[in-house]
């Protein structure tokens, strides 16, 4: 086997021409799916963390229950529950005017991913908020800073520096877990891979997918390392 043949074994030019553009599309869908759900999940997660750390027992319990449920069951089960479970209550959603939402696999997937990552991110935020030294709150109080100023200017920036590493890990896990979106008809990276394979029956398609996932994860990992180094510059 010469070099060209070896190359064609892994990257067949015909195959690439036929399915390459679809892979780009799939990559974009995966990126969009993860970016949106991760960002919304961060907002929800922060609120959940604050609820868990609040003095209100009801909020604490609700938040703890939420986190317990979403971390304790598989993402796949949550996705199916939303898409097939809630999605089967067609007349109900039509009555409340939400059918447009639960009809679409895309929205259901976004929702499931957001709810799931929010639970993990809530725990990350909770830990990082608790890691801020009590003296910081005291200094803020001694300066008569308002609670909102204390939180946004003093506490949150410091806790984000602690959180960024674990958040990066969560993002990477999300990117890989997002492949299950393909099970509810989403043509994300995994979705186009399955499609291309079902037509070509060439295993190299899966190799491409693996390499592409690896590539995104690596890019994310490096960017995070860079950001982390910049943010934490003055805290060591």
């Amino acid at each position, binding site marked *: 086997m010469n070099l060209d043949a070896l190359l064609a074994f892994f990257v067949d030019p015909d195959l690439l021409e036929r399915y390459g553009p679809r892979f780009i599309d799939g990559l974009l869908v995966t990126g969009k799916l993860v970016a949106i759900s991760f960002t919304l999940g961060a907002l929800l997660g922060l609120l959940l963390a604050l609820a868990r750390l609040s003095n209100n027992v009801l909020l604490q319990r609700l938040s703890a229950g939420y986190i317990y449920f979403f971390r304790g069951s598989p993402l796949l089960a949550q996705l199916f529950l939303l898409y097939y479970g809630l999605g089967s209550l067609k007349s109900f959603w039509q009555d409340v005017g939400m059918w447009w939402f639960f009809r679409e696999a895309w929205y259901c997937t976004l929702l499931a991913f957001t709810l799931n990552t929010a639970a993990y991110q809530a725990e990350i935020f909770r830990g990082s908020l608790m890691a801020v030294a009590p003296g910081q709150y005291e200094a803020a109080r001694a*300066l008569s800073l*308002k609670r909102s100023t204390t939180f946004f200017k003093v506490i949150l920036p410091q806790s984000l520096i602690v959180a960024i590493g674990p958040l990066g890990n969560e993002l990477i896990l999300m990117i890989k877990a997002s492949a299950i979106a393909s099970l509810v008809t989403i043509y994300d990276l995994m979705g186009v891979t399955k499609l291309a394979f079902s037509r070509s029956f060439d295993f190299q398609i899966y190799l491409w997918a693996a390499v592409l996932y690896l590539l995104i994860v690596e890019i994310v990992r490096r960017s995070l390392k860079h950001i982390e180094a910049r943010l934490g510059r003055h*805290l060591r």
Partner: protein
Amino acid sequence: MTAPLSLAAARPDTHPDPRKVVVSIDGLNKFYGDFHVLRDVDLKVREGERIVLCGPSGSGKSTLIRCINRLEIAEKGTLLVNDTDLALTTRQAAEVRSEIGMVFQHFNLFPHMSVLDNCTLAPMSVRGLSRKEAEERARFYLNKVGIESQAGKYPSQLSGGQQQRVAIARALCMKPKIMLFDEPTSALDPEMVAEVLDVLVKLADTGMTMLCVTHEMGFARQVAERVLFLDGGQIIEDAPPEAFFNNPQSDRAKGFLAQILH
């Protein structure tokens, strides 16, 4: 001080002091759970007075000064600052509280902000100063504490003594009427204690009302008008420094002085 030494322990209401009372504490009691930290503390601080608090570890010194700006809340007794009960949620109470500055043993600077930003945050967000005004004020006080050239640095890039001076400048930027210090030099390496004490002496010279928890007895002799000795949550002695150091009344104060002066 002309007061006869024998009167030192039972001062000074017989000698009317014309200065206004700015902190008035009456029958203050504070508990941590079952632990009775402050027991019936009475204290009057007059405008411009410089008071040093000392006493063994755990005697309640920090708790007492933290009660004054409500970092701790006492269960019983009254505590008025400028005739205002800071427990109230009125505007005036908030205003008075914002005029009490505090410096901590471990500086508690905001590590993610530059020295300048540490000093401008509260004046801008609490006092409503513009950035320009706040920076001017910050530079003025940073200059006073001898650290203006470091304004752009981050706290972690400064020595402990420099950080504590920044913390003092940060508090002064709020133009406080009363300054509280909780062992401001005890977390410092010995060679940095003097630079911070110098700043405190200069501040005392400006007529600032100061309450300072410290075991720096040289400093107490130099600037304090009164030394309070706390033990077991009570003020056991309240006397001018000379009287306190040369002629402590209680055995506990004698023992304490013997220990820290070797």
